[in-house]
């Protein structure tokens, strides 16, 4: 598994992402946003942060960066892409995933643990989880309120493209645990070919007992084995 982490000015979670990948045996290369080639990567990761200061809209500037042309070509070749937090926002702004991330319904920046329910376990990202299980992840975002029009939401559901939903630890989907107000409690979605995953919470924050848990590690283990 050859992986690269794309870096935009203002991204600040790239080292955490690298540590998570290294923990699963993958040594990622850092790729500056002004580069135009990805080389022969299997996996491109767009980490979290505040690319370009969140100017205009979260991810809007990054989506126009030179490297994104290569990321698009990588997607068209069927390459794997993981976008977390700002990375998810960038993927929607670039049109690689549908919908958009709006300001949290509460208007508050949310920095806390949440539980995600695994909606399908037959993808390259989720194969080390069980369908229906929950795992703990950390959310840290001001704009994580997933929005798409009704037709798009229906299509995502019909095609089984919701990867994760905000849930109680027991796996119930309730408004109380959908803290950012996301449509249908969506925390992560997949592309049509299920090789692109965008998600708001951070699986890379829990990959070592020293971090307080390893709930996110199966995602990286699964990717490393792909």
């Amino acid at each position, binding site marked *: 598994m050859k992986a690269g982490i794309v870096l935009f000015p203002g991204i600040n979670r790239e080292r955490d992402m690298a540590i998570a990948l290294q923990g699963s045996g993958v040594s990622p290369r850092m790729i500056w946003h002004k580069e135009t080639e990805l080389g022969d990567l299997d996996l491109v990761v767009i980490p979290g942060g505040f690319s370009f200061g969140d100017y*205009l809209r979260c991810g809007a500037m990054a989506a126009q960066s030179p490297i994104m042309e290569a990321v698009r070509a990588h997607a068209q070749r069927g390459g794997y892409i993981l976008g977390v937090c700002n990375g998810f926002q960038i993927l929607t702004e670039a049109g690689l995933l549908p*919908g958009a991330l709006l300001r949290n319904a509460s*208007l508050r920046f949310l920095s806390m643990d949440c539980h995600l329910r695994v909606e399908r376990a037959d993808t390259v990202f989720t194969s080390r989880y069980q369908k229906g299980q929950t795992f703990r992840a950390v959310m840290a975002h001001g704009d994580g309120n997933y929005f798409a029009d009704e037709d798009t939401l229906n299509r995502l559901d019909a095609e089984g493209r919701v990867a994760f939903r905000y849930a109680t630890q027991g796996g119930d989907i309730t408004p109380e645990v959908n803290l950012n107000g996301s449509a249908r409690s969506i925390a992560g979605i997949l592309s049509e070919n299920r090789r692109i995953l965008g998600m708001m919470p951070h699986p890379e924050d829990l990959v070592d007992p020293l971090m307080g848990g390893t709930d996110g590690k199966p995602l990286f283990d699964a990717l490393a084995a792909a």
Partner: protein
Amino acid sequence: MKATVTVMLKPGVLDPQGKAIAHALGTLGFAGVNDVRAGKVIELELTETDPDRARAQAEDMARKLLANTVIESFRVSVDG
């Protein structure tokens, strides 16, 4: 010439910022504010001197970058 692009969340897209502003106006004693929507105004100084072409340029910019048409609508006005 100057083109002004006004970007607003589409009707039906929740605007928590607008709601917070409406709430604050009520707290300040302004009665009768039924709804508030907050958006962005972007002013462009263009070298183009033909109003129709300037408008077309600004609309193209709005579609490609200034607005995210998944959630936002825009309108362009041209003057100068």
